[in-house]
């Protein structure tokens, strides 16, 4: 430890600057989102979200220092203990939490401050998964190991669903990218994507049309892509099997969306297809955020000049819908810059991950990138009307202590591991 006195040593400053840019831009936009021209308050006033976010940002410096000071081996050695602890915390939350907007995922600490353990569980799941997959002799393509890895990733979201915080639970789907990178046969993610496409098709079109379309696609595949000698009886049965399973899935989806999903979840999917079906209810956020973003035009209306994001048109303006403010006030240019910064950050993390000598650090790096990507994918997707409304924050930009801290910890543990990449764990 004696040689580790300068904690700046080995830190990847490109990542840090990209991170800082996103956090700073987020803070500016949180101020814009809560800014009321009739009653302006300063950006430092802690009675509003912008001032509070500044407090959260300041406190992340302490977190970062702690992460960088801790010996990098701790993250590997204690991965399972952390994981076990966070599982207990998640279960305890169900009983300790006070109900906020129907979900029991917030633990009150003191009178003003509350934490959402679900946000932090991703970090420790990522550490545990990296630890497991980097163990000597573990191979994801072996069924037994795949099941263990799957369980590691599945248990936290199940508890989180019990907390009625479905949005956060969904983010654990991000780990599929990690599995894929570590050797899960490509057919699984491909199947996943194919089913997702089918799912969306069922939402938009009549299920019988979709089945008919499937039949046509199978026919075309049979005649156009298979060579004459491949058209065997066996392959016909296989193709028939695919058709039957796909059709069953189509009917299953219909059944699922109308009978299994809660009414409010059904509505969120319904308004994605047709926002005008319920413009004042569930369609409100979708329509309003789309209007806000498109009204920004190419260069936006200018900082604090937004109209749609004022007057409380868009609910959850500074948290889940912060991208609307970016879109309205900074326009196409600003939105693209934010997406590009994220793309650069993801690119940087993946490239750093690949450089790691230790398998643990590499897998953890992929976990970080996948989680960040999934949030970006869902959050921006919902504000521009390409995804259903799922309440998860935009990393680093959205208002909220739990979300800012958890993403900061997630990223800086990786930077700490990376700083020691020359030492094999």
């Amino acid at each position, binding site marked *: 430890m004696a040689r580790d006195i300068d904690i700046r040593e080995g830190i990847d400053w490109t990542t840090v600057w990209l991170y800082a840019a996103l956090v700073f831009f987020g803070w500016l936009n949180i101020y814009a989102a809560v800014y009321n*021209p*009739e*009653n*302006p308050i300063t950006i430092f006033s802690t009675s509003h979200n912008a001032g509070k976010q500044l407090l959260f940002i300041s406190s992340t410096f302490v977190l970062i220092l702690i992460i960088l000071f801790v010996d990098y081996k701790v993250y590997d050695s204690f991965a399972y203990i952390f994981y076990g602890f966070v599982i207990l915390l998640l279960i305890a939350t169900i009983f300790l939490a006070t109900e906020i907007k129907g979900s029991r995922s917030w633990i009150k600490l003191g009178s003003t401050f509350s934490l959402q353990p679900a946000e932090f569980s991703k970090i420790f799941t990522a550490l545990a998964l990296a630890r497991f997959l980097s163990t000597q002799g573990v191979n994801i393509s072996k069924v037994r190991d795949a099941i263990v890895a799957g369980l590691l990733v599945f248990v936290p979201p199940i508890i989180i669903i019990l907390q009625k915080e479905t949005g956060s639970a969904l983010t654990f789907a991000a780990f599929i*990218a990690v599995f*894929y*990178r*570590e*050797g899960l046969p490509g057919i699984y993610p491909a199947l996943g994507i194919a089913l997702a496409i089918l799912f969306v098709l069922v939402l938009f079109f009549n299920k019988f049309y979709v089945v008919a379309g499937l039949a046509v696609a199978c026919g075309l595949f049979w005649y156009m892509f298979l060579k004459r000698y491949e058209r065997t009886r066996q392959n016909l049965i296989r193709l028939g099997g695919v058709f039957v399973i796909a059709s069953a899935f189509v009917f299953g989806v219909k059944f699922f969306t109308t009978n299994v999903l809660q009414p409010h979840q059904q509505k969120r999917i319904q308004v994605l297809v047709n926002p005008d079906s319920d*413009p*004042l209810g569930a369609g409100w956020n979708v329509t309003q955020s*789309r*209007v806000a*973003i*498109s*009204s*920004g*035009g*190419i260069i936006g*209306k200018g900082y604090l*000049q937004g*109209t*749609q994001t004022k*007057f409380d*048109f868009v609910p959850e303006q500074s948290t889940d819908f912060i991208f609307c403010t970016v*879109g*309205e006030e900074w*326009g*196409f240019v600003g*939105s*693209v810059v934010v*997406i*590009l910064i*994220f*793309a650069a950050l*993801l*690119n940087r993390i*993946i490239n750093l991950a*690949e450089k790691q000598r230790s398998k643990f650090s590499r897998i953890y790096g*992929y976990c970080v*990138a996948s989680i960040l*990507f999934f949030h*970006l*994918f869902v959050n*921006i*997707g919902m504000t*521009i*009307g*390409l995804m259903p409304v799922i309440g998860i924050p935009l990393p680093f930009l959205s208002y909220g202590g739990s979300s800012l801290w958890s993403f900061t910890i997630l990223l800086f543990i990786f930077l700490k591991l990376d700083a020691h990449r020359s030492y094999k764990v």
Partner: protein
Amino acid sequence: MFQDRKQIILSFFFLVCGIYILRLLYLQVIDDTYHTIGSTGALKKEVQIPLRGQIYDRNGKLLVANVDVYDMYVTPYKVKQMDTTTFCRLFNITRSYFDSTMAIAKSYSRNRATLFLRQLSKEDYARVADAMVSFPGFTFELSFFRTYPARTMANALGYIGEISKKAYEAQEVEYYRSGDYIGITGLEKQYEMELRGRRGVKFTMMNVHGENKGSYSNGEYDTLAVIGKNLFTTVDVEVQQLADSLFQGKTGCAVAIEPKTGEILAMGSYPYYDPNMLSGKQFSKYFKELYKNPDKPLNDRVATGFFRPGSTFKLVQALVALQLGAITPSTAFPLGGAPVKCHNHPGSPNDLHNAVRFSCNPYFYNVFRKTMSLGGETNPFKEAPVMLSKWHDMVEKFGYGQKLGIDLPSESSGLLPSVKYYDKRYGSFQWKFSNIYSLSIGEGEVSVNMLKMANLAATIANRGYWVTPHLVRGVGQNGKGVNPDLRTVHRTGIDPQHFEAIIGGMQDAVERGTVGGGAGIVEGIAICGKTGTSQNKKGKDNSVFIAFAPRYNPKIAIAVMVQNAGFGGSVAAPIATLMIEKYLKRKIERTAIKERMLNLSIKTVEAMAAGAAAKPIPTLTPESTSKPTPAAPVAPTKPQKESEKPVKTTFIKPKDENLNKTK
């Protein structure tokens, strides 16, 4: 292993980013459906302020109404070269006012509207409207102020004013803007939520040239303003106004309650002032003057005052003693040997009836002594706490030492000394009956407000229970929407049969007892009353009288107090019985007594001390409410922040549904 998959994963990430960028390109650059709203920023937000609810008396007479007025705003950059002299003459303002206000407006903002002149009447507005063509830059907004047609009950009704900075910052849900009006005292404050209604918001789209392009999204996001709910009070304005006139030249208060329901029939605190004086632009002119008056007309003496209950407390003493079995109606006590003196009265040896009739101090000293000796202890220092605590719990049930729960923002709980109180004062087991005997005649450590005194009369009228006194019997609709807590029945735990001896004594007190010279006798109505003379540290005693009537099936219970007027029977009793007469007979037949009371003037010690500096409270003439007065030359309400997004204020009128129902 699987290093090639890095490229696939990264490609997928970039593909999604690419799709999102394309989608943004479509939304923000190609599709121009929403660009009109966005690029010009011309979504206009109009705030619709609803009219505040009106307040009625129990017979549907209007107590508080709204008057439409116009506020004039100036937008400096739109003001062209103008004939200032004509303008000043038109609005009856001075040149210096014009110059200074204009300078303030300019320094505030050249292109925002700043308040220039407040509260022009409709007539003034009509007079100047045509001439305004030659004065561009000046605009009018409809506003309102409160008016009080009955000109009474100033303190109970309260007034409205601009929201204070503290209240503005303390609001949990942001509703008020700075400069908005809010109830400051009285019913206006207590029922603020109901009276204010709900502000509406209307969004309209404007094109680049500022032309109205219709409501935004077919009005989906608009909220309609909802007019404030009317309040239906329990007050009988005729009785109230009679009290106002009887109290001319006197200081004190009067409160009357309907015993069965707890409804307050009249509630006046004097000296009296016209509530219109604190309305709108009059406020700054009169508030200071009222505030400085030595008789404190702004203090509500009924619910927040502190007085010794005096002899009226003897009734409570007797009831508690009867219930405990310390005395019976025929118990007699010798008059000597008591440390309190007796007024001269005939009929000794006296029983309870005569003791009430003549308000005999030694008798009630003995009653209390007897009550306090029921503990069975030989050591008086041990006995006193036991019995006092029992006595305290019983007296507390009459409402002493606690808030009664009237629907007004401030109410004093008064003081009813407990064991703890005396322990703190003298030390544990360091006090006995001889330390506390002055409680027996309502002096000493017990204090009340007049509401409690009237409530005692109501409790006796009801033979043992009282209903929370309250001022409002209907919110929005007469008889509906009232907090059910206001109708709570409180039982004293005193059995009904104990009341008759007391009540008989009270009737004789009015007819042949402490109320001298028949000043309390009203033909055909059996009034039961009790005088009180509450000792006053400074100057003459306060004259107190409580009563209810008729004796059987009582309709009204009343308490009247006249400061520094001396003995209770002399001034307070005639005023109270006149109010009872008015309420039950709807007219006054005892004109001689009324005349005598009208002409009687009693200066308070405070007023005498203030001497010549004490000015009488000015009276308002009806005309003075409609004259335009220049707005205070401070930049008043906060103007709109951005001129391109004006927040225009419009008013909606009440549909007179509720008003007609009550007539």
